């Protein structure tokens, strides 16, 4: 049986919603809230890292090939990276 991350039915809820597994917040993918996602045009990116600095979720990282990407499990689609990216390398597109 596939292990579930949290209860499905009301009677599976632990009393008081007490969570005994430490540091499990990472299992909650807040990226599911987003309505838009950032797309990088690597030809315009000058690798300044402004997107990495401004991301309020801390979910943007630089890859080995120097390009930047957001971890979509945690990106809420706020668009701050696209707003701050002065070379205009980031575009927000609708989740579909």
């Amino acid at each position, binding site marked *: 049986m596939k292990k579930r991350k949290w*209860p499905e039915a009301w009677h*599976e*809820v632990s009393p*008081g*919603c*007490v969570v*005994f597994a*430490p540091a499990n917040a990472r299992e909650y993918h807040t990226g599911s809230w987003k309505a838009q996602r950032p797309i990088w045009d690597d030809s315009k990116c000058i690798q300044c890292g402004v997107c990495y600095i401004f991301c309020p979720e801390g979910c943007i990282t630089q890859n080995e090939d120097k390009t930047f990407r957001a971890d979509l499990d945690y990106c809420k689609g706020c668009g701050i990276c696209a707003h701050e990216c002065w070379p205009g390398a980031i575009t927000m597109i609708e989740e579909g």
Partner: protein
Amino acid sequence: MAKRVGMEVAIAAAEAVGMCNIDMAAVYPITPQSHIAEHLSEIVADGRIDAEFVTVESEHSAISCVTGASATGARVYTATSSQGLMLMHEILPIVSAMRLPVVMGIANRAVSGPLNILNDHSDIMPQRDNGWIVIFSENGQEAVDLTIQSFKIAEHPDVMLPCCVNIDGFQLTHMVEPIEFPDQKQVNKFLPPRKPYATLHPDKPASMGTFAMSDIFHEVMKAKDEALKDSKKTILKVWAEWEKMFGRRYRPVETYLADDADVLLLTMGSMGETAEIAINELREKGVAAGLVKIRLWRPFPFDELKQAVKKAGILVVTDRAVSFGGPGGPVAGEVKAALYDEKKRPLIYNQIIGLGGRDMAVSDFVKMVEDAVKAGAKGITKDYEFYGVRG
């Protein structure tokens, strides 16, 4: 051996807490609860019990403080009245959601405004939907017994919910009554140390007061509702155990001469005793009157109430609070809702009585019943009346 003493009820309630092996209390004094706060702090300061008494700066802090302490696994107590309870309101549903067995005494007092320190139930009624077990005491003995029982009920592994004991301000808190204190050894046997479901200890990490969005919140609320409804089984068991050990019986709905009554009065809290005398007088006059007293307000005792009123033709429900612009007093509203599906149900009069300490004499209860019997169905011209209001 149990001992019988004459004692002010607020002092007695604090003495009862002192018998419960509490670890800490945080109580902010407010009239008419102050003597509970003062006396409990004395019990701690005199070293009679090994507990902390935290002198908080407000009722919001008092309830927050005992909530945090309860989360660590401590047995805790707080008490308040009126505006203090209103200030606690923000925290009350969190305590029940976290399933923490906080026990609270409420010395019932009218809420402002206008400012009034005397007794009615307008403080507890707005707190109805917080997920707490809500119990009413009728006299000092019950205030003592229910306080001790509340720890056992609240902490039971099948319950794990906060519990409040309502003690009418002044009418009870400031009366000197004969009270039988149970033997400490017997109380220790009845109420062993708390075994918490979870504690805040680094050896066994736990997150409490967690976050729940729309994907799970609905299920969490259903679980909380089921927990509160289910607590009645344990409440009944604890009351049965209390009766066996200490000889005094507690039921969710108490009745007095109700079995063969054509007309019933319904009260909650201290006015039940005055109403009993009124029932005696009515019986002497040949009126087949009886009394129904709701002790357990949450979880609401639907079955017991239906059973208690099923033979009566008229039910006079008294309320000590107003639901302004609503269908009547909060008690009558719930009683009517509980009886809606019954094939045979009594005519219901709703009298709002005794607001802000307005005295209710035996003769007032006699008059309410006699007027209802005289008028029958034709007498119910309004959903509710303010009994004895001038003008």
